[in-house]
């Protein structure tokens, strides 16, 4: 349909009939079709900016709708949580905040009426342990291998000293959101995953904060995520990093080495142990990895050690220590996690007490991970966190009296009722007439009735003090009523947390669709003006009207990509599609070059020789693109399913550091020499030689120095670390200073005469001597050429500094690819439309994005590189560096558009008009390089948004589709930044030159 539409658009006679097909802004444009130019530069810019703004609005609407992040209630639970909702003692809460911790503790105990069941807590988190390993599945005991691996734990379960739960975790099953859920009882949104690398302090109401206000001394050993979540709350800590996934021994040894000392000392109230080894074992070899059994034995030893120490403490000091063994999530058969399958969400909550829990519990009790928060709060007598949606785990409280047990149910109910009231602000519970047995209520009314029911029963039970011990029936009824309320409220609230507001999503998608169609329409209208086409070889007019294979194919790429995005395995293996499509497109270019290269079809006999040479060099450049593209593809296997297969990077890593280092040096030297040659060639005789040489060589030398001396020193001393940081910082500074200086100064000083640039790249221009009349035109393209090269060079050097050493060769290959492509496109080939060329550059950029080892999972983001040259921890700067590293290739594609524009044969503009209209020049230069990436990206963005919405109930929505969506959003950002930079640089140059001409 769109192809057809485009063809219609190209015919003047039917131009008006199409106007009602285009929406909104474009209608005006088409109707105002004058004689020559319907779309002035200003209009084009305004409409593009408008479309981009609409897109940003739509995207943010959709994201806020799809990934809810906000908690419902703000603030922190205090004294009021021990009183029924509605009768909040505001005067009390003010005093509470000023109370010293021990006073607060006794006050809480007094008002709650339930003594703490235990005095201190050991929270042992075993990362990634599926509950199945300890408790079995569906009532069956765990497999023999695992039972034998954990003899002590199994004996505890058998003796009734331990109570185990299958604590179902909510997706995304990634460590940080799960820790938050466990400690606050609230289900966070997906965006938590995005911040998993970027952990920030956890400010919502949570247990650790409550314990801290309580005056507890806390010790943390293990995953450093805790330290980031709760800065300055731990008395002692030893954090380990979870990013070295290959390490399964040291990471746990670093936790256990302090254990003996900590167990001996008595000053702490909460000891957190977070063992990462088991998760790493899973990542290496899956559930049945040979390392799994030894790891479970190790964990069993730790449990044994803590438990025997707890028994000793119990006897010696009369302090009850609760050991709570939990896992944050499970793992699939292959050891991955993140999604919502049973294997991943089946996490463990195992309460181990020094005394008995009363009876041998069954091992197949189902609960939710959020229940842990409420249970721990009630066990230790702190207020339940405000946004908790969990319910208490009753089997742990068997040592309490009946009244106390009812009291804790009441406390839990009050807290959930408060949360419900926040959802239904207009509803008053007292208004409903709830007759028992009437089940027809729904929503707020139903919860009210359930609650009032239970509360009334409890009141009457409390009033008849004397007779209640005789009959257990009343008691059981009250428990039943409370559980009824708690379970339904909890279920409703957790559904509420994952609900998606349909209005936001729909308006977001509508806005994105609108902006997408605006951009596409702008492209059509712009393309119809066809600034580059039909200008010279008249005999090719018939060729121009026809659709060439490469044009059809580059449109087909869009549809193929969109349709492939609907399949989760294609999203995981997206690198294959990009590579396959890009290479196929270049093979088509290759065929096309051959097609138009026969002597028989040449128009100007005197140019035969030159033309032949030209087509030879075109063929070489395509071959260069093809070869470097293939090497790039082989560099990183990428993806998920075949990531283990051998590739060049793995081979090099096995070969040791010497080949990597030499490759790195070669790439740096080649990048510097290629760029220097390219920039100095046309400007050899000009006065900029010194400036360019210095601005290219000096940072290049510093990067070489950095790579040689500081990059892979694993055992760094503090002093060399500091030097490395300073060096990296000075490289950043130098690169940005030189870029800025060249960007701003060059247009002012560029000589306005016909220089070599044009001749170098555009041999066919010699046919048109009249183009040499306009000196400003040369100034413009020379300046853009210099600015473009400077930006490309700085970007490449930055990448060589920041990327992993193994990726330096791919950076060089990318540069070669862009250069060769630009060389291929440069001679103003009348057979290739300009939008195809820009699209091809964009595709090469995207293929290169995956060639650098990126995938659609968040795991491949290079976190280590984001700390190069950062002296103090700054999330913002690290985030920017991470973005620079990840989007190296698409950004390079956009920057190379500058060079592309400067070497493109644009004699048409000078040709058609005596006086060069700079608005027209600008429009011609900036039009496609900005519109095509924006348009392509908007199509991908809106298509993928719709796919994500359709897939919202898919099993892999959290593990595959949502991370991909984050990447799509980041790509959009990258395109915005890149295109606006390109547009601004050209506009600035143009304005400066206009000023100079008028002088």
């Amino acid at each position: 349909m769109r192809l057809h539409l485009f063809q219609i658009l190209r015919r003047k006679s039917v131009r008006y009939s199409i106007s009602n097909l285009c929406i909104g802004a474009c209608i005006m444009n088409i109707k105002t079709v004058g004689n020559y130019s319907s779309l002035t530069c200003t209009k084009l810019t305004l409409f593009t900016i408008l479309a981009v703004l609409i897109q940003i609005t739509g995207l943010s609407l959709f994201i806020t709708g799809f990934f809810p992040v906000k908690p419902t209630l703000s603030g922190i639970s205090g004294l009021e949580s021990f009183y029924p909702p509605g009768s909040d003692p505001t005067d009390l809460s003010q005093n509470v905040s000023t109370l010293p911790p021990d006073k607060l503790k006794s006050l809480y105990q007094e008002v709650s009426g339930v003594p703490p069941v235990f005095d201190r807590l050991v929270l042992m988190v075993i990362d990634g342990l599926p509950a199945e390993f300890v408790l079995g599945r569906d009532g069956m005991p765990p497999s023999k291998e695992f039972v034998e691996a954990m003899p002590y734990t199994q004996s505890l379960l058998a003796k009734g000293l331990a109570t185990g739960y299958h604590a179902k975790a909510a997706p995304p099953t990634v460590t940080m959101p799960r820790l938050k859920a466990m400690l606050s009882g609230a289900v966070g949104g997906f965006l938590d995953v995005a911040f998993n690398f970027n952990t920030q302090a956890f400010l919502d109401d949570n247990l650790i904060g409550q314990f801290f206000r309580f005056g507890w001394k806390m010790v943390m050993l293990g995953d450093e995520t805790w330290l980031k979540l709760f800065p300055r709350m731990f008395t002692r800590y030893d954090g380990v990093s979870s990013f070295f996934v290959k390490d399964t021994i040291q990471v746990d040894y670093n936790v256990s080495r302090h254990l003996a000392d900590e167990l001996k000392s008595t000053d702490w109230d909460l000891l957190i142990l977070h063992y990462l080894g088991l998760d790493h074992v899973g990542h290496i070899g899956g559930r049945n990895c040979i390392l799994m059994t030894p790891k479970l034995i190790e964990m069993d030893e730790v449990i044994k050690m803590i438990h025997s120490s707890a028994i000793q403490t119990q006897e010696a000091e009369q302090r009850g220590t609760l050991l709570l063994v939990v896992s944050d999530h499970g793992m699939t058969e292959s050891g991955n996690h993140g999604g919502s399958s049973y294997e991943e969400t089946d996490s463990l909550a195992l309460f181990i007490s020094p005394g008995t829990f009363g009876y041998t519990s069954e091992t197949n009790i189902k609960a939710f991970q959020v229940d842990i928060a409420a249970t721990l709060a009630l066990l230790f007598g702190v207020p339940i966190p405000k946004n908790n949606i969990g319910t208490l785990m009753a089997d742990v409280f068997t040592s309490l009296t009946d009244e106390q047990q009812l009291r804790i149910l009441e406390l839990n109910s009050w807290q959930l009722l408060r949360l419900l009231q926040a959802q239904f602000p207009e509803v008053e519970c007292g208004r409903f007439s709830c007759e028992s047995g009437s089940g027809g209520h729904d929503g707020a009314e139903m919860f009210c009735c359930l609650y009032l029911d239970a509360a009334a029963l409890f009141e009457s039970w409390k009033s008849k003090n004397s007779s209640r011990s005789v009959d257990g029936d009343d008691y059981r009824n009250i428990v039943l009523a409370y559980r009824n309320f708690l379970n339904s409220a909890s279920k409703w609230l957790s559904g509420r947390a994952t609900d998606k507001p349909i209005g936001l999503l729909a308006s977001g998608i509508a806005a994105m669709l609108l902006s997408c169609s605006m951009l596409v329409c702008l492209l059509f209208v712009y393309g119809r003006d066809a600034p580059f086409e039909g200008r010279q070889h008249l005999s090719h007019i018939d060729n121009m009207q026809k659709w060439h294979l490469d044009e059809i194919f580059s449109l087909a790429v869009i549809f193929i990509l969109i349709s492939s995005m609907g399949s989760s395995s294609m999203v995981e293996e997206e690198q294959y599609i990009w590579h396959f499509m890009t290479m196929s497109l270049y093979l088509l270019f290759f065929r096309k070059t051959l097609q138009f290269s026969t002597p028989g079809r040449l128009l100007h006999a005197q140019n035969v020789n030159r033309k032949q040479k030209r087509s030879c060099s075109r063929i070489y450049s395509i071959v260069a693109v093809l070869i470097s593209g293939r090497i790039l593809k082989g560099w990183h296997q990428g993806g998920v399913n075949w990531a283990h297969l051998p590739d060049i990077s793995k081979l090099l890593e096995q070969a040791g550091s010497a080949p990597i280092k030499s490759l790195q040096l070669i790439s740096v030297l080649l990048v510097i020499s290629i760029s220097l040659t390219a920039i100095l060639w046309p400007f050899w005789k000009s006065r900029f030689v010194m400036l360019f040489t210095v601005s290219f060589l000096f940072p290049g030398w510093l990067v070489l120095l950095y790579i040689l001396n500081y990059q892979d020193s694993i055992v760094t001393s503090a002093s060399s670390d500091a030097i490395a940081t300073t060096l990296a910082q000075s490289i950043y500074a130098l690169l940005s200073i030189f870029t800025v200086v060249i960007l701003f100064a060059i247009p002012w000083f560029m000589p306005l005469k016909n220089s070599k640039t044009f001749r170098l790249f555009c041999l066919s221009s010699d046919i048109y001597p009249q183009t040499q009349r306009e000196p400003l035109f040369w100034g413009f393209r020379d300046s853009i050429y210099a600015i473009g090269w400077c930006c490309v060079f700085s970007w490449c050097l930055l990448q060589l500094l920041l990327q992993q050493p193994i990726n330096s060769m791919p950076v060089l290959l990318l540069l070669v690819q862009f250069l060769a492509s630009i060389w291929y496109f440069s001679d103003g080939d009348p057979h290739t439309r300009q939008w195809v060329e820009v699209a091809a550059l964009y595709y090469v950029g995207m293929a290169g994005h995956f060639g650098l080892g990126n995938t659609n999972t968040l795991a491949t983001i290079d976190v280590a590189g984001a700390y190069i040259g950062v002296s103090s921890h700054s999330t913002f700067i690290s985030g920017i560096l991470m973005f620079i590293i990840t989007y190296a290739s698409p950004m390079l594609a956009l920057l190379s558009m500058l060079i592309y524009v400067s070497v493109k044969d644009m004699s048409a503009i000078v040709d058609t008009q005596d006086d060069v209209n700079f608005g027209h020049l600008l429009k011609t230069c900036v039009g496609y390089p900005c519109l095509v990436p924006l348009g392509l990206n908007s199509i991908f963005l809106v298509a993928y948004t719709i796919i994500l919405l359709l897939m919202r109930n898919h099993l892999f929505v959290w593990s595959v589709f949502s991370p991909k969506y984050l990447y799509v959003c980041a790509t959009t950002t990258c395109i915005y930044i890149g295109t606006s930079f390109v547009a601004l640089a050209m506009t600035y140059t143009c304005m400066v030159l206009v000023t100079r001409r008028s002088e």
Partner: protein
Amino acid sequence: MRSLGLRLQDEISHTLHDNQIWEASTLVHFKLFLYIVPLIFIWFYQQTKTVSKSIQTQTGLVSAFWAAQNFYSLNLLSNPAETLYLIWIVEASVVILLYSLFRHNPDKCSYFKAVGRALLGLPAGAIVNALGAIVLGAPVGLQHLRKTLHWSLLMSVLTFVPAASIFGSSWTDWHRIFAQTKPIGAIDYMICLPAHGAAIGAWFGAWPMPLDWERPWQEWPICVTYGAIFGYLAGMMTSFGFIVFKNWRRHVKRD
């Protein structure tokens, strides 16, 4: 016809016994096609003699597959390299011997010269095809070497060899057929359409490779070979249709 049906049934049960329904159904469909195509050709044979050659090439492919399956008990799934080897040997002999009959300028160029240049074109075409496949992402490595070699030789037989034997080293003819895709006359159609069909078929045949269906036929170069042969057969059919159509038009005009 009846015996053909029986054979097919026999094949189905034969292949099904190792419970690989997917592969079996693909194979069976494939063979069905291979059997039916020559039948159609034989039916048309009554009307025009120009297609005799394409019938014979079809028969070449069929007999190669048949021989591979029945005499050597090879198939693409278990022994891709050997099967490809057998197929290209049989197909190459049929194609070279047949197409050389249609060489350009038969007065200046002897039959054996045509055979000779076809033999020269075979490795040259194989190199081009192998390079193309590798650029598009075919795996490189010692364990894939034999498969890639035999696959590219087969592709060369399907694409390059006919042109080599007919045109020799005439650049204009090669350019017309492969770069411009402007065939004129029956012979051009016979070369151009099957060759393009084979290349396009192979291109589409690579599509299932990155999917995680874990089927044995997703391996390089099995599905690519299937795609190429499908495309080749489709190209053959189309070229045949074109020839018949043009003949018919000519007869109509003459009348």
